[in-house]
């Protein structure tokens, strides 16, 4: 370990940084709210959070790709304006240039620095060697597997010898085995002190990954993004996933991530706060039914430990939380201390036939999803029993960005169709009460 030599100076200092993006209705949507963060030499820091928690935005502020709306972001004491020197980035999607070979991709960053050809070649080949890509120098990215491509992404970032390596969910586009190999390779190089970098900042929504790799994990809460908690991971490398301390930390993080920042997640205040403006993530009703069935069946019997459930279903923490929240919204299940527990309605749902399920689903939609109730009411009241989607879209955009409004509308349509609450015509973008299948069939 190089802790003694590395752990001295402050690389990145973030003070009270906020960032908002313009929203459809003209007001701004706050995605990052007064965040503080310091990154010192010699540490791997993880930003853990759900999608939409602003962690990627924070990473991009540090990378100089996005400017903060307020607050101060400095790199080695200098305010960050545009990509700072000595910071390199690894992308989730690899971001390799398909028309350049592996070697040319790796050399790209050096060319921009104006390093002369021979030196460039030498350093590029050294980086390629280090990351285990020798033999692939003349290959084009499309000839490589995902894991190999991300190795190129690492080599390209390492070759400029950055002080800080930024990683934006670097393993999430890879399959489970490849991701694990790459993680352990990287950790091995890091503890051997062979990486030409001082610190790493990584964004992830994979809880185990964060505990496996990081010295410090910052948990972000969503809407707006804030640092909800910070955990130190003192376990020595290489870490063992089955170590009870490791498991305990993973459980704690799960629990932390299912908590709301200020108030506990009771269903009542959740809806009272947001009303029609609640963003609905699109989750297929099939997936919801499947999850309810799984929860109701052995071995869970209506009560599942989240890491265990995620492991069985091969889902990332982010995804399982996502599904759980939809169930919680519909009062079919509830988060309790890092566990997912079926409600009475949820248990009933699991035992019903298709039509009865649809009916129950419809009742819950109208009762617990305010916008669904609104649409149903409007359709009932209007003599024509039709309403343009634009009417509700406008209302949604008062509360959220256009993208979220689209997503929410998509969810509304899909859930409403499943529950047979209303029909939706995609061509004319109108909701109606008629049952399209019946009408057309008789005509």
């Amino acid at each position, binding site marked *: 370990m190089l802790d003694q030599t590395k752990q001295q100076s402050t690389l990145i200092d973030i003070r009270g940084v906020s960032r908002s993006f313009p929203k459809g209705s003209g007001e701004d949507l706050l995605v990052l709210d007064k965040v503080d963060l310091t990154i010192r030499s010699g540490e791997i820091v993880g930003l853990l959070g759900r999608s939409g928690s602003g962690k990627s935005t924070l990473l991009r502020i540090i990378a100089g790709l996005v400017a903060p709306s307020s607050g101060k972001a400095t790199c080695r004491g200098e305010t960050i304006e545009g990509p700072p020197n000595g910071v390199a980035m690894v*992308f989730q999607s690899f971001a390799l240039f398909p028309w350049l070979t592996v070697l040319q991709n790796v050399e790209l960053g050096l060319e921009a620095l104006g390093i002369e050809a021979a030196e460039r070649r*030498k350093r590029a*080949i050294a980086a390629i060697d280090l990351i285990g890509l020798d033999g692939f*120098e003349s290959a084009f990215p499309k000839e490589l597997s995902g894991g190999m491509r991300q190795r190129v992404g690492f080599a390209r970032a390492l070759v400029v010898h950055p002080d800080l390596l930024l990683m934006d969910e670097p393993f999430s586009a890879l399959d489970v085995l490849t991701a694990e190999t790459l993680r352990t390779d990287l950790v091995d190089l890091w503890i051997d002190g062979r990486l030409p970098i001082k610190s790493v900042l990584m964004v992830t929504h994979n809880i185990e990954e964060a505990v496996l790799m990081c010295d410090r994990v910052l948990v972000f809460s969503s809407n707006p993004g804030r640092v909800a908690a910070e955990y130190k991971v003192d376990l020595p490398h290489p870490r063992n996933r089955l170590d009870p301390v490791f498991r305990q930390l993973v459980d704690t993080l799960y629990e932390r991530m299912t908590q709301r920042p200020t108030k506990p997640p009771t269903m009542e205040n959740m809806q009272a706060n947001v009303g029609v403006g609640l963003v609905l993530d699109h989750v297929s009703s099939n997936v919801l039914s499947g999850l309810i069935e799984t929860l109701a069946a052995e071995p869970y019997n209506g009560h599942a430990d989240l890491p265990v459930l995620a492991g069985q279903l091969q889902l990332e923490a982010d995804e399982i939380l996502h599904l759980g929240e939809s169930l919680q919204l519909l009062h079919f299940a509830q988060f309790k201390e890092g566990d997912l527990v079926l409600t009475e309605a949820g248990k009933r749902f699991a035992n019903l036939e298709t039509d009865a399920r649809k009916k129950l689903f419809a009742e819950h939609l109208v009762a617990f999803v305010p916008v669904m109730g609104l649409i149903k009411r409007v359709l009932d009241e209007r003599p024509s029993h039709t309403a343009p989607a634009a009417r509700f879209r406008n209302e949604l955009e008062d509360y959220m960005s256009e993208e979220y409004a689209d997503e929410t509308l998509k969810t509304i349509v899909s859930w409403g169709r499943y529950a047979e609450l209303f029909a939706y015509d995609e061509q004319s973008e109108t909701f109606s009460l008629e049952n399209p299948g019946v009408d057309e069939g008789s005509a």
Partner: protein
Amino acid sequence: MTLQDLRIAVLTQAPRPNIWDLVALILAIGAMVLIVYGGEQTTLPLSALETAPVSLDPVHLPVYALRTTLRMLLAIVCSTVFTFIYAAVAAKSRRAEMVLIPLLDILQSVPILGFLTFTVVFFLNLFPGKVLGAELACVFAIFTSQAWNMTFSMYQSMRNVPKDLDEATKSFHLSGWQRFWRLDVPFAMPGLIWNAMMSMSGGWFFVVASEAITVGNTTVTLPGVGSYVATAIEKRDLTAIGYAILTMLLVIIAYDQLLFRPIVAWADKFRFEQTASGDAPTSWMLDLFRRTRALRTLTLPFAALNRTFSNLNIEWPGALRLPAKAGAAPSRVIDGLWFAIVGIATGYAAYKAYIYLSASLQPSDVYDAIRDGLITLLRVIVLIALATLIWVPIGVWIGLRPKLAERVQPLAQFLAAFPANLAFPVFVFIIVRYGLNSNVWLSPLMILGTQWYILFNVIAGASAFPSDLREAASSLHLAGWRWWIKVILPGIFPYYVTGAITASGGSWNASIVAEVASWGDTHLSATGLGAYIAKATEAGDFPRVVLGITIMCILVTLTNRLFWRPLYAFGERRLRLG
């Protein structure tokens, strides 16, 4: 692999020429000699054209073909340079974009042959008494037929650069110039090359049409295949026209094999996809070149030069840089100023145009032009409908037979590139011979060259139709009308619309040369906007040319906006497979 190893690999590969070097060398030297020879001819005084009129002796045809080809080459180079500059400015500057993109859209629908009237006069005045002026006018005409769609393609690519690559270039500190050559241009390459090919196909038509042109008292006859045909028409020589058609066939084949195939095969690496896909395009010419040793070494300095050039550390001027600061709303004051300047310029142009036109035109002239325009519109509609009825069933039939499609597809593309106006005299000869009604029988000429776009797009659509859907259809016993309407027509619809848009745009352009025709001293004419513009051009009646072009421009833009684009959008939204 270490640095040492790489060097050795390069060295062992190096000089020792092989037989392919010789072949490639001869080809390269031949090309250079021809270019120099062709270039020398253009600096001659204009009077030389009169002393050495175009001869119908087929011996001269290779030289004529060479000069026609050189004009095409020059035009495509100009178009490319224009594309890079115009698209870059439009994509990088919001304010420029507001003006440049709508302008481009209009320019796309301006009839190119109408343009020629002005440019001939302009360029002849620019180089008085020199062949160069006339040559430039001709090159400019081809340029106007090629540049717009290439520019659009480049602009769209630049606006759709993947976000992660964009962030990567910023994160690795690439300068604006480096980014342009490393990201923007390669990313735009496949679309650009496809559009350049389409432009070239269209270009042959215009090079042939613009080599022999009369504007008022000025008659210019540039040596080339086009003027050869014009002379043949004058002298009623059907054999000479046969020679010209043959020559053109050979030229287009050579152009395709020697220039475009290699470029397409080479540019395959720029296709933006992360997985290796089926068949990569191949080119024997590129293979030949890649097999040579010495010639490849010769290109190394150029490659190095290219690297240095694209690596220059130039930043864009501030105006072209997108604001990096968060929420830094673009300045309202400068926006207002910009709108004011654009508004004043537009107003001034409109005022000038009005003064110019109203001096010599009556309202009745406008009615005439509109009436003629509607007649031509009717022609275009009927012709596209006929071509659809004929080529859609044939295209589907061919496209569903992969072996056949493989052979017919290049032929259809080739026919689309062939300048149909070379074949016009044959038809005119028949019309004159049998005394047919020119209002009816001249019309098919408009679509002679452009119908192939419908055919090859339909073939492409039918070939791409998923076989599982076909199998599902036959297992459901769908046949006859039901099969056409429920299965195949929706399946090929997006392709068909693409082809039909090109065909209809091309027909408007062709109307200027198709609605009037002559055979010796017999002159045929159909009523229509094309004939209106053609006659005004010949008479040097500029106000009427302007009026005709304006009306055509408006009609083309309207049909595109009100008919084709909604259809295209519908096809993309609802009927795109996969």
